[in-house]
């Protein structure tokens, strides 16, 4: 489903290269965990997948279902089924959350040639999704993410993921800022979405999240490259021994 080939990318503003020859393949139905120390390029990778224009791909390619997505803008990528759950979701004053959800869902439907949702059907879906994440509907009456706690913002991201039903879900440190209860709720939300035709890229610092969202593969990112891949035992190994050993092997 996702094939990243010898990807090189830099920050547009100052030319700093962050991703330096990254290779990664994720199959449909697979949950791939990306781990790595601070500054290894994990978040950058998630932004590049989503199409943020602050980064520029200088070499290599990203294939999604066999097609390069490099020329697609963030909206086109999203409507084609790529979803990024932000590490730091934006607060956008003045944009009502419900209005935003409706616009986003209907824009995606429009791009797929589907009719816009009728209001009762829209409300029903939002209510169900919110209930499954233990979210108060009153929260959704506020402007988008404004005044939400860190945990509420992460839940809101998963809520959007549920409603938009993407095919490739990129979760950027979704566990950061979550207490144990919230972590469980969010992980359950993600697990409920696991499906044979849907893949996940779970970016995290810690093994903790992977106890709840059990990965099929684990990849260690360091200095913009995948330096080691393995199964879920690799995450346990990293938790026990740190990154130094893996980095040493690769060097």
């Amino acid at each position, binding site marked *: 489903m996702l094939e990243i080939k010898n990807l090189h990318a830099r920050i547009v503003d100052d030319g700093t290269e962050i991703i330096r020859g990254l290779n990664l393949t994720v199959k449909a139905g697979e949950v791939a965990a990306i781990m790595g120390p601070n500054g290894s390029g994990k978040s950058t990778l998630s932004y590049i997948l989503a199409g943020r224009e602050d980064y520029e791909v200088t070499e290599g390619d990203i294939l999604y279902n066999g097609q390069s997505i490099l020329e697609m803008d963030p909206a086109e990528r999203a409507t084609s089924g790529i979803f990024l759950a932000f590490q730091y979701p934006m607060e956008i004053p003045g944009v009502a959350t419900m209005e935003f959800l409706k616009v986003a869902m209907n824009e995606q439907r429009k791009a797929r040639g589907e009719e816009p949702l009728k209001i009762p059907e829209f409300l029903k879906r939002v209510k169900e999704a919110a209930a499954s994440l233990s979210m108060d509907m009153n929260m959704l009456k506020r402007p988008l993410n404004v005044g939400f706690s860190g945990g509420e913002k992460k839940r809101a991201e998963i809520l959007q993921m549920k409603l*938009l039903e993407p095919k490739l879900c990129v979760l950027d440190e979704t566990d950061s800022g979550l207490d144990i209860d919230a972590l469980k709720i969010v992980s359950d939300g993600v697990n409920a979405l696991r499906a044979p035709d849907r893949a996940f890229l779970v970016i995290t610092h810690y093994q903790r999240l992977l106890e709840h969202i059990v990965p099929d593969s684990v990849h260690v990112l360091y200095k913009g490259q995948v330096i080691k891949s393995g199964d879920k035992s690799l995450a346990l190994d990293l938790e026990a021994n740190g990154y130094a050993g893996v980095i040493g092997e690769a060097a």
Partner: protein
Amino acid sequence: MSGATLMNMHTQPQRTPAETALIDAFGERLSLLPGDGAVMLKRDDAIEAVKHGLPTRRIESWHYTDLRRLLNSVPDFDPAAMAKALAPIIDGSAVLPILNGKSEAKLPAVDGVTFQRLSEKLTDGSIAPGLDPYGSDDAIGALNTAFVADGYFVDIADGVELEKPIELQNLQAGGQAHVRLPVRVGAGAKAVIVERQAGEGAALVSSVSQLVLDDDAEVTWLIVQEQPDTATHLAQFKAHIGKNARLTLFVINAGGKLVRQEVLVKTTGEGADFKLRGINLLAGDSHSDVTMVLDHAVPHTTSTEIIRNVVTGKARGVFQGRINVHQYAQKTNAKMACNTLLLSDDGEFSTKPELEIFADDVVCGHGATVTEIDHNHLFYLMARGVDEKSARGLLVKAFVAEVIEELDDEAIVEALEARLDDWFVTHG
């Protein structure tokens, strides 16, 4: 050539076509204008001010809106112009249309409210004392006093709480329209008043609203200005706010070629509160100016002013906000903010806040920002599949809608958001 004529030539710069047209029109219209002797004297004085010349950038209060230069032509009065009344922005409102400067003989019936055509009050002279301009640089007041032919007088009796808004519609279909809207809101009375300014011609419009709030009165006044991009709209809103009375003035400027909306407010009783919320949606090559002078004239009065501007195309905008805190007006609390979203390289917005404080125990502040669309916000919305154009639209609307949402009356919020949507459909 006599010496007197020569001197006159030195002191009187050559008249612009607009000045000449106004002076000529006054001569032609005079016999048609209603008014007793006192009113006609006020008109004579007022046209003298026009003869003196329209204000230029050298007059401080007109520095950013050089009326003499910008008003380059004045349309003739057009007796054949036919404007049509509009559906009110809030369902169930009592509508009082003024079509091409003329009010309707048939007046709505609202319990506790007296309506009267302004032409009658000009004819009997009872309105004369209110016709004096606001100081020597008051070009709008002078122009209006010279030409005003009609409008409505509204009196809301003490203690009356109106369930439905009153909508005053000043509608033009070309030519000239000069109207005046004096409104008294009695002690403890409550009302929502909509002042609708719209039309479809390249008209010259002057409109003066005069509001008096007696003690404990509470008024939300909405000015919705949607003139076509060919019209010149010169408007003034004057208010006196009595003891413990509260006034919220909401101004949406979403049209016109040359627009100046003056807001002249005075707190006259302790505990008076004034809120100004303004949204300027500027497009094309229009010039729009909102100029406020607020006098905190007595102790213990409060005010907040928030202006949000969206500038597109080659539009130019101005906000001048002057707060005068008089010597005895201790414990005044006033805050003013002007935020601009600049969406084009060719647009511009000038903000001039002025605080003149003669009391020593007050809290006064002001702030101004100019921003572009936040790229992080844009990315977030697009990452959810909203295309760039719609995402920008959402963010621009959000920028101005914030000041609407704080109004707690749902009917008003919906009505104002509908006006915004209208503008975004045309200019998005």
